[in-house]
């Protein structure tokens, strides 16, 4: 930093409550609309409902009842699968109070635990993409950065033996962050120095990461035995879980929340954050006022990569404890949707991640109890994103007034 940067002014006034409601209204209605259309799809694809509609004029009530039943079974099991069975929770609480035995109660919280476990990598990866958006950079490479970060942290996790946990665990986390940061910094540097567009480069870096991990898992990082997976990480590198099996909720979730606060603090409370946002809003003005575009671009892409790396790191150290080719369920790609839904604000990203986490997690039960393919969740997610990206549809649907709001700049166009 050669020139004195402009000090951030107190321009982040606490938004009026009306504004907050405005900010939340479109995403909330988008989610609602997504669920309603999802329900329609469930009805259309439900055999019983379809038969009942065949006889709609003979017995309209039967058709409506069949529709209600299909949707109720689906979304009911989705809810139970996300948050737990109220009956079991109350029963567990009763046992807890009468005998002091908490095991039944904790066991009843298993679905909630799984939701938070699924939300954890989503929070990190969503933050990663959101941070990029704030600087006008579209990081499509979160998935590749996640792979590299995961492999780096797993390598540190299994190859170092005999360290105490308070050295080993931080080392493994650091390795994950650095791995991701490296993978993000490369396209950042190319963008800053040569103008090569980060969208193209991050996508290409994804492929390099996928093929590299194929090779690593079949070669240098392969565990003994025939399976193409890494060895298990040492216990000293594990992120501790809060409860006994099968509950997998662990410290990774807390780290994710801390990371969200960290990103918020960086973006809105520091000079660096002010520069990042300035570069995102108007790079020419930012350069004119003495900010380094190169430095900020590389920095943001490195930080963004580090967050993606941490998404995988938290998952491998806390949940799986080994890495195979099917390590990521597409967290890095869903992250783009999360950042959009969260309007690139850390709090918004956390809320969006919790929503996606519960949807994804509850879908397992929905698939089993209602026989609805897990893909319906992807459809609902896709619809939500369309509505968030095109708020005019929501405004028109719900007859909302068109209110001017501080829209976040997502990405700059091609070239300059």
């Amino acid at each position, binding site marked *: 930093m050669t020139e004195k940067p402009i000090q951030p002014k107190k321009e982040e006034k606490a938004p009026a409550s009306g504004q907050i409601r405005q900010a939340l209204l479109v995403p909330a209605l988008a989610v609602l609309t997504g669920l309603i259309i999802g329900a329609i799809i469930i009805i259309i694809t439900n055999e019983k409902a379809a038969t009942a509609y065949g006889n709609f004029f003979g017995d309209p009530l039967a058709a409506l009842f069949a529709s209600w039943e299909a949707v109720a079974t689906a979304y009911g*099991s989705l809810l139970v699968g996300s948050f737990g*069975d109220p009956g079991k929770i109350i029963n567990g609480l009763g046992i807890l109070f009468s005998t002091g035995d908490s095991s039944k109660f904790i066991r009843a919280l298993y679905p909630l635990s799984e939701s938070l476990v699924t939300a954890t990598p989503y929070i990190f990866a969503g933050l990663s993409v959101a941070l990029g958006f704030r600087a006008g950079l579209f990081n499509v490479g979160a998935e590749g950065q996640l792979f590299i970060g995961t492999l780096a942290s797993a390598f540190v996790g299994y190859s170092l033996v005999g360290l105490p946990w308070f050295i080993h665990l931080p080392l493994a986390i650091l390795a994950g962050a650095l791995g991701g940061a490296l993978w993000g910094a490369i396209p950042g540097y190319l963008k800053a120095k040569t103008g090569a567009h980060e969208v193209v480069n991050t996508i290409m870096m994804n492929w390099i990461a996928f093929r590299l991990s194929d090779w690593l898992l079949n070669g240098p990082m392969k565990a*003994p*035995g025939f399976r193409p997976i890494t*060895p*298990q990480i040492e216990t000293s590198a594990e992120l501790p879980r809060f409860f006994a099996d099968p509950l997998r909720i662990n410290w990774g979730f807390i780290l994710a929340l801390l990371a969200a606060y960290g990103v918020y603090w960086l973006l809105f409370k520091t000079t660096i954050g002010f520069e990042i946002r300035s570069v995102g809003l108007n790079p020419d003005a930012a350069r004119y006022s003495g900010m380094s575009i190169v430095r900020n671009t590389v920095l943001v892409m490195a930080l963004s990569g580090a967050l993606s790396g941490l998404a995988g790191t938290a998952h491998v150290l806390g949940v799986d404890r080994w890495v195979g080719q099917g390590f990521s369920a597409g967290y890095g790609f869903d992250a783009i949707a999360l950042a959009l839904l969260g309007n690139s604000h850390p709090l918004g990203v956390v809320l969006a991640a919790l929503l996606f986490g519960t949807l994804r997690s509850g879908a*397992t039960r929905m698939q089993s109890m209602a026989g609805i393919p897990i893909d319906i969740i992807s459809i609902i997610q896709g619809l939500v994103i369309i509505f968030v990206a095109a708020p005019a549809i929501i405004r028109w649907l719900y007859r909302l007034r068109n209110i001017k709001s501080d829209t976040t700049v997502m990405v700059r166009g091609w070239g300059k």
Partner: protein
Amino acid sequence: MKKIFAFLSLLVVASMLLTACGGTTSSAFKVGQVTDLGGIDDKSFNASAWLGVENAQKELGVTGKYLESQGQSDYAKNIQQFLDEDTNLIVTVGFLLGVDTAKAALANPETKFAIVDYAYPDCWPGAAVGKDCGSDKEIANVLGLTFQTDQAAFLAGYLAAGMTKTGKVATYGGLNIPTVTIFMKGFEAGVKYYNQQKGTNVEVLGWNTAAADGVFAGNFESTDDGRSLAESFVQEGADIILPVAGPVGLGSAAVCKETGNCLVIGVDADWYETAAEYKDVVLTSVLKKINVAVYDAVKRAKDGTFKGGVATYTIKDGGVDIAPYHDFDSKVSAELKAEVEAAKKALIDGSLTVDGVLAK
């Protein structure tokens, strides 16, 4: 605005009511299949296993369900979901589920498990039980379903050696793992047996059992890899290819169809039917009837004859076989057909073995 919020709160209340009426109990025998990442419609082993469950539903009156795994952390979660539903038999598909299956089976001795392409004990010296591997001994409530696919591939190799015009045949795998290389080994042995019988010198490209190494795509997805592998094999002079890499092989079939320079031998299912767009270049297929094995496991679990351990399917019980020649029926000479049939009989009665041929 108010209306919207009223509607939202109504929805919340309604959804709370819904949860109360979820969950029906039925006394039917419950079977649950946990897929690997390929998904239920992978046209490969997940689909084949599900076909077995579906047949069991039709013929044995069980209720069957499946849960798709989207990431590796779904394995344990999906198994847990079935455990929570008091599922009687849980079928897990693929070796990546090996550790999670063993852990769940040991913790739930009342529930029966069947795992495709895997068997216990699976530990090696120094491995941590429950982490690196599933169990260091057999598990009483888990049945491993394994396949002697080398026997069927042997017949395919013999047939290929008899059909080749260039004197070279080829094979490649997805990954260098036992469930894949067993096909390649059998194929090589079949060709070798043909050479021994006929005094010919048909060459096998892409695999060498003695060196335990060969050509691998490195994945089970990329049809582009299948194309380029087939092209390079054809350049080296091979005219019949056995791809053991799931959908990757379809890329090779496409090259053969476009150029007319080669034929493929399908794996797992009869490609003449499952990949019908390439039926004019499918010489035959090496069948690995996962559906039969899964159906058997369900049947045993239901009628009480289920026992833990390993069930190995062989050419003798029909669990592995080669598919009919279909359109090539007229092109395979009666003499060759009879020889393949004789080799099959010899494999069944044990007078001919894959390892025996390779050792010679």
